[in-house]
């Protein structure tokens, strides 16, 4: 199977500038006096959370070449973990609930990964989807786990230990922004580490990697677990932000959205995942505002992207503005 179109590991100067400007814009936004500021704050926070989710999938898909149709399972599991950990009358402390929730997601990824990582190509796609659906139905069918109605998260986590009040919209916004930048820098560093180089090798030619002595199963499983853990971080933030979790968070549509965000932006460099997340959400909101039958437009948009821009927006940008010597950040 040919390797997916991951490219642009070293981001061109233009993209680096774009990212820098973007980060500054995001940091400055809460100070801009605009109508409906609260609404936009919330919307952008959600986009940032989805960007973290997309980056976690990019590690799996863009870097390692594993196309998972079940990544949302870990996103949702961490969200449910927060919901279960938060009592009805008190918030739960951030410092231990976040690692615990992300850890639970990571553990699930480890267990499922053990079965799933031994498959290849189309099988991998199908079994990741199947296991995610299994988890979906587990929550959907069981009243004790909330059932199809879901569960409320009555309080946002308590971060007063570090002087932040997450119930405050602006504080939560900056907390999410910090998480986004943190995860990005972490993953960029990982990309150029021995581990990241090995994952890229596995994507391009797993057979040769084994022939030169890499235990590729272990590498893929580690990537799968790490990706699941980071998806958990995003899921935790989502549950904290929206105050509500339901099985749809773990469902097929959520997983497919993640794939599309990563593809739309351009795979394999994490910047594309961020761009893709923002672009995808924006397009979806735009279509939803236009018509009740927005799914038709969305479907058409997706088909168009596959045909016209298989390497995503960053890939298009590279084609249009030409390659120049890029950097690692």
């Amino acid at each position: 199977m040919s390797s997916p179109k991951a490219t642009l590991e070293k981001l061109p100067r233009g993209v680096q500038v774009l990212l820098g400007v973007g980060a500054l814009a995001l940091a400055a936004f809460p100070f801009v006096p605009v109508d409906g500021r609260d609404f936009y704050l919330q919307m952008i926070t959600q986009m940032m959370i989805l960007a973290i989710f997309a980056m976690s999938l990019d590690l799996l898909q863009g870097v390692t070449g594993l196309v998972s149709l079940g990544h949302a399972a870990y996103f949702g599991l961490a969200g449910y973990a927060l919901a279960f950990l938060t009592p009805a009358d008190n918030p739960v402390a951030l410092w231990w609930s976040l690692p615990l929730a992300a850890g639970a997601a990571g553990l699930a990824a480890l267990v499922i990964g053990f079965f799933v990582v031994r498959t290849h190509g189309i099988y991998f796609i199908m079994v990741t989807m199947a296991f995610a659906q299994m988890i979906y139905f587990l929550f959907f069918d069981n009243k004790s786990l909330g059932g199809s109605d879901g569960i409320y998260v009555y309080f946002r986590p308590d971060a007063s230990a570090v002087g932040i009040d997450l119930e405050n919209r602006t504080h939560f916004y900056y907390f999410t922004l910090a998480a986004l930048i943190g995860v990005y820098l972490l993953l960029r560093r990982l990309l150029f580490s021995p581990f990241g180089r090995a994952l890229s090798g596995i994507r391009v030619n797993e057979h040769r990697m084994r022939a030169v002595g890499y235990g590729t199963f272990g590498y893929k499983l580690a990537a799968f677990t790490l990706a699941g853990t980071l998806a958990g971080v995003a899921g935790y933030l989502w549950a904290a932000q929206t105050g509500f979790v339901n099985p749809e968070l773990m469902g097929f549509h959520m997983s497919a959205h993640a794939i599309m965000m990563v593809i739309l932006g351009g795979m394999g460099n994490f910047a594309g995942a961020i761009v893709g997340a923002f672009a995808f959400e924006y397009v979806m909101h735009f279509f939803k505002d236009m018509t009740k039958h927005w799914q038709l437009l969305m479907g058409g948009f997706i088909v168009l992207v596959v045909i016209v821009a298989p390497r995503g927006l960053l890939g298009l940008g590279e084609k249009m503005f030409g390659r120049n010597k890029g950097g690692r950040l």
Partner: protein
Amino acid sequence: MSDLLLSAQHLTKRFGGLAAVNDVSVDLFRDRIHAVIGPNGAGKSTLTNLLSGDLPPTSGQIRLNGRETAGHAPESISRLGLGRSYQKTNIFLPFTVWDNVRLAAQSRERHVPWNPIHWFSSATRMTRVNERCERAVELAGLTHRTHTVAATISHGEQRQLEIAMTLATEPTVLLLDEPLAGMGQAEAESMVALLQRLKKDHAMMLVEHDMDAVFSLADQLTVMVNGQVIASGTPGSVRADPLVQAAYLGEEH
């Protein structure tokens, strides 16, 4: 210390009813090149795959550097000191020549993918890996191409890269599957010179169709036809063997 680095005994590989390799034994000694020749479909590539772990044998034993390896995974066989190059170029096309070889060289570091240290250190600052990589690139004669993308170099250079990657893991046993395939005269000559240089420190098995190269390099020659060994010995004795002449060499002109 024994110079017998790889010993394969009575290897058989069946696909359904067909025996692609049938009771084949091969010994590889340090400082000796053992060539395996035969017509297409003789089972030479299958034999190589059995030795490298790409295919498990139906029966038979393989002893590599003192350990039993029949049916083991390719990665563990590689770690025991076996290097294998492929007939159909099997490199990382989108990466540069340096990155190709570096990745192979990195595999020798004692790595557990779960160790977070390896998630945050810089891959390019691994000194031992870089040294290994430098040596392999130089040996294979690709220093002038170090930072060129592998997909853009010539076919002959890609075959050199094949070898460089095989050497970067510092193996003691080399299995080379048609290293001269598709090479022009000059390129073939430098490849033959390279193989001569490698001989001293390695036990080598060479699968080849280029008869000039085979007879100039081989210390030992095995002829395979239809999955079986029909002759094995010094090049001179094999060449004179009437069975071989009838089955194979007679047609090779």
